[in-house]
């Protein structure tokens, strides 16, 4: 049990630092979700299943989605095919890779962020 706790604490710390260090904003949102998931496992270990359920549903699930949608609303992250016709077989992997894809015109995501 001690080892599980240590591994999860390490995971939470690493993903929390990743939130600050990552250049990609969508990556930072995912890292904060991972940190919340680790914290919810810690809550189970300290026998607080109610709090763990809340943390998993709100912290790991909803807040990540809200942050991703917020980034999209601000124009810092695009889904593949936002501009032009949608390809019917756009896969999840392609959508996840979307922030890396160059935008047709205007500055890239990183440039925009530091502007």
């Amino acid at each position, binding site marked *: 049990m001690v080892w599980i706790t240590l591994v999860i604490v390490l995971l939470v710390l690493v993903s929390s630092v990743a939130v600050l260090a990552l250049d990609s904003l969508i990556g930072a949102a995912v890292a904060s979700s991972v940190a919340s998931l680790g914290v919810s496992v810690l809550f189970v270990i300290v026998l607080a299943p109610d709090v763990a359920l809340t943390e998993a549903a*709100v912290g790991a699930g909803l807040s990540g*989605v809200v942050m991703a949608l917020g980034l999209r609303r601000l124009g810092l992250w*695009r889904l593949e095919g936002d501009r032009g016709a*949608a390809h019917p077989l756009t896969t999840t992997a392609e959508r996840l890779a979307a922030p890396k894809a160059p935008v047709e015109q205007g500055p890239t995501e990183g440039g925009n962020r530091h502007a």
Partner: protein
Amino acid sequence: MRNIASLVFSVGLAFLLLVIAAQLGFGHTPMVVGTDILAGAAQDVGAANIVTAIVFGYRGFDTLGEISILFAAATAAGLVLGHRRAGAADDPRGGLILGAGAELLFPMLVLVGIYIVIHGHLTPGGGFQGGVVLAAAFFVAVIAEPSKRVNHAAIQVIEGLAGAAYIVIGIWALVEDGSFLKPMLDHGVMGQLLSAGTMPLLSSAVGIKVGSELAGLLAHISESEAGEP
């Protein structure tokens, strides 16, 4: 200047927390209300899950405040996000994997959400957690098929009725027994689904309210047009 200000703020906050931590005996709570509730909850409200007993029994009025705050937050977000132009392009469809996954996940998430809501007084969980799971179930369907429009009017009616049901149960207790949101009805046998009086009803009302509120909010954010880079 800004760095100095934030340094002063962090040092002050750390000092404050350290002082509080030094005053507390480790592992000993300074308040006795927790011990009292632990000792008497089973007789008072008849719920097997003491956390839910506190949320809907002892502190029902606080829960009403929480759902009001959530309502205000959702309303403010709806105002800020604004309306969608008529000709705006939809998001691309979710694709094969996300579509099939959404169809598979939707019934399971709905089932888990309903289970968490109606078993709030028996097992970990309750209205808030189950409501969030229900909202996630409907939002997964929206991601997979963004061209489908969510019926916001229906969601608002459901949300309003659920919120009103919570207050009506409270007022019923006020008329019947003299205190707002006092647990009513027979306690029944602890551990049965129909036990703990009005607690499952309150939990269901909160679950439906939170679920429809968050589902409507997420659908609203995802329907709003993507910003220009």
